């Protein structure tokens, strides 16, 4: 075949590839215009009398009154002018919110064109420049069947008050801060987060609940039960020695990292987020820590003049799949490497699966979330001054949170975990909570839990001589939580 013929064949494909030539003979706008005209005409013919009060109605009324026999005109009505429609529908200028009054200034137009913010909608209200603020108050009454060392657990307390702030600092960074406390006040979170990095990349730095596992970022008062599962406290929290050393063991129940996290939304059609993070330290081995009391300060641990090996490094991934309109699955996988020195390295892996049912029509009344998370911890301890011991421990928890109607929900929690510091000491828990929400900002919760024999505490007792645990016990809790002001959550 000669080259000219080949070229002609090639060119002949082009018209078929253009949808406009592929059979649509009438341009959509023209077709739509005709349809609209027909519809308008039909409406006009069917209903000659217009709604009183409207400009078009008045005009028609006048026309019909001026006609001697009051019969409708048979000529075609003129094409409806958009100006007439808007004149009829637009509220008076003074009835509109201030920001919409008048024409756009040149500066506003430039700001809009270059992607900068427009003038605030309420420029007379300077407080809008202040950060969003909110206060959460959590009151709890706890009663247990424990006796002996732990009997003072029967008490009514303000468990926590939380004051939170967040705001855009400028077009590039947002800032968040949360101050909490009951007896003592502390800064629980304070961090900066970028808001305009390219390629869906976000970086946050400061002190924060780290992106580790399924529930670590969830604030305590937002959990579907009173406190964090035992396994999570064991592997992500840090045990705290009590000052008076009369009782043991209390925990910071979740991991508050000091460091930097980089989050990247992978360019896929489904949600896939990757995490890389560096934290100062994952396990608190410093002077005065439980670790130091239990095992002694490890040789080679440094809180100053740190090398790159002295930090903790984390990798994580989160996937989210929608299974139709009502169902979804979320998978979280994380790993953290914590190595102040090679002799005392620690690695922790977490894998969580969350299934959620949230019916479209009745999301206000029905819904369910089921989560299961597994922890696997590998750690090398200094058993005595010279001996090293490798220890692998693991834990698991699972819960179901079921919405009974728009006020009530019920949750069930079960879990089991080996003690991080002593694989021979285990503990398990079961519990159930009934929550009542008079409004979105207010919740009352009743919870009953059974905690297994305190092998953890016995283990600690055997090692460092603190009082032993008191065996298995039941716990009854009434929790009353309310939120004032602004309290915004992103997806967690």
């Amino acid at each position, binding site marked *: 075949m000669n080259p000219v013929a080949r070229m002609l064949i090639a060119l002949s494909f082009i018209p078929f590839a253009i949808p406009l030539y592929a059979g649509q003979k009438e341009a959509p706008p023209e077709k739509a215009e005709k349809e609209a005209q027909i519809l308008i005409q039909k409406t006009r013919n069917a209903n000659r009398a217009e709604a009183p009060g409207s400009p078009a109605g008045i005009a028609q009324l006048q026309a019909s009154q001026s006609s001697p026999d009051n019969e409708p005109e048979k000529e075609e009505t003129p094409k409806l002018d958009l100006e007439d429609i808007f004149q009829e529908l637009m509220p008076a200028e003074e009835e509109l919110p201030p920001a919409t009054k008048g024409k756009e200034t040149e500066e506003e137009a430039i700001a809009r064109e270059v992607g900068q913010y427009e003038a605030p909608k309420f420029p007379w209200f300077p407080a809008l420049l202040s950060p969003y603020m909110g206060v959460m108050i959590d009151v709890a009454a706890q009663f247990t069947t424990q006796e002996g060392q732990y009997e003072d657990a029967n008490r009514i307390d303000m468990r926590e008050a939380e004051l939170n702030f967040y705001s855009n600092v400028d077009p590039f960074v947002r800032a968040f801060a949360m101050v909490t406390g009951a007896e003592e006040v502390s800064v629980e979170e304070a961090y900066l987060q970028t808001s305009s990095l390219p390629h869906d990349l976000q970086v946050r730095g400061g002190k924060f609940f780290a992106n580790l596992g399924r529930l670590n970022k969830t604030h305590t008062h937002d959990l579907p039960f009173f406190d964090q599962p035992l396994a999570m406290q064991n592997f992500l929290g840090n045990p705290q020695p009590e000052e008076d050393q009369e009782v043991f063991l209390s925990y910071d129940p979740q991991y508050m990292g000091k460091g930097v996290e980089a989050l990247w939304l992978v360019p896929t059609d489904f949600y896939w987020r990757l995490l890389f993070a560096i934290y100062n330290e994952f396990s608190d081995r410093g002077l005065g820590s439980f670790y130091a009391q239990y095992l002694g300060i490890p040789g080679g641990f440094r809180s100053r003049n740190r090398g790159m090996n002295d930090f903790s490094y984390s990798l994580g991934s989160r996937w989210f799949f*929608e299974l139709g309109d009502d169902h979804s699955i979320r998978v979280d996988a994380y790993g953290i490497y914590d190595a102040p020195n090679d002799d005392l390295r620690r690695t922790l892996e977490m894998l969580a699966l969350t299934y959620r049912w949230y019916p479209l029509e009745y999301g206000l009344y029905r819904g369910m979330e089921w989560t299961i998370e597994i922890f696997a911890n590998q750690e090398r301890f200094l058993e005595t001054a010279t001996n090293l011991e490798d220890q692998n421990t693991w834990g698991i928890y699972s819960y179901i949170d079921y919405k009974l109607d728009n006020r009530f929900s019920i949750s069930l929690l079960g879990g089991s975990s080996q003690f991080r510091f002593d694989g021979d000491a285990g503990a398990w828990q079961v519990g159930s909570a009934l929550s009542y929400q008079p409004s979105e900002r207010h919740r009352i919760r009743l919870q009953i839990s059974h905690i297994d024999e305190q092998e953890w505490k016995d283990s600690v007792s055997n090692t460092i001589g603190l009082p032993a645990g008191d065996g298995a016990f039941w716990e009854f809790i009434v929790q009353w939580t309310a939120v004032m002001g602004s309290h915004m959550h992103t997806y967690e």
Partner: protein
Amino acid sequence: MKFRYLLIVILMIFLANPSYARKIKVVTSTPDLKDMVENICGEDVVVESLMRGPENHHAVPLKPSFLVKLSRCDALVVNGLEYEHAFIPGALLAINKPNIQKGASHYIDTSKYIKPCEIPSKIDLGLGDLHPLGGSHIHIDPGNGILMCKVIYERMSGLYPEYAEKWKPQYENYVRQIYAEMQGLKEYVKGTEGLKIVFYHPGWTYLTDRFAWIKTSYVEQRSGIPPTPSHINHLIKIMRGESCTLMAIEVCYSLKIPKYVAKRVGNVKVIQIPHHAHALPGCDTYLTFIETLVKLIADAGREIMQNETGYPVRKQGE
């Protein structure tokens, strides 16, 4: 040689086909806005709605898939007046997208020309989870729908001026269609003027004002607060006092309390109404949603009036 020609042909087809030209990605908060944007901007846009028709806008779960859609879009179109408080602010906080943040260049708030109704005289959460800027359900009135289209056209053609001329006839025709539908419905409801209605969730004054009905009260006596026994008792007294015999309940709310109230008041008709496009079968566009909504109420009102007077209330044209 043959392979080279084949490559050239394929390349030419792709280059010549305008359907491969990049389309503008728009995310809307509601299915009604999706329909409006599609009608105005036609084939030049790909539109996704975050909310589904039957969903309650106060209870839309913030899904991670929203973050993906918002991160990839060119423009975000919202109802405004805090309508999307449950899912848009939290989602915007979690993504890197300065130009679709509230008030930014590609954040299109369609409430710009709306005169808000039911503006609270006092902002106090003790009075309920209020709509602080007024009723945010602006789309339920076709007149507002036209003004929302005006904002969409103005902002979209401002952002993409190369399409302005192309979109103008589509926009004007769509506005004319909504206006014609509104005029038609005004005729349809004739004879039901003054009909007293109880809705579930506050914000329906836009609709009742447009069609000369009377909004008697709401099942939610405090906006966003599930009605307590005293609220229910208060509503029963109001309905008896006002002789209101129609309860029009949005499909996303339970009929349990309305049916109880209807039983206690006596001789009350309870109907389910759509609150968005796609909320009920047959409401697959904004126009059919408005038509279904208004006709359901008007038909129920006519039936009530007929029962009360004993005379049939004729539909227009019968």
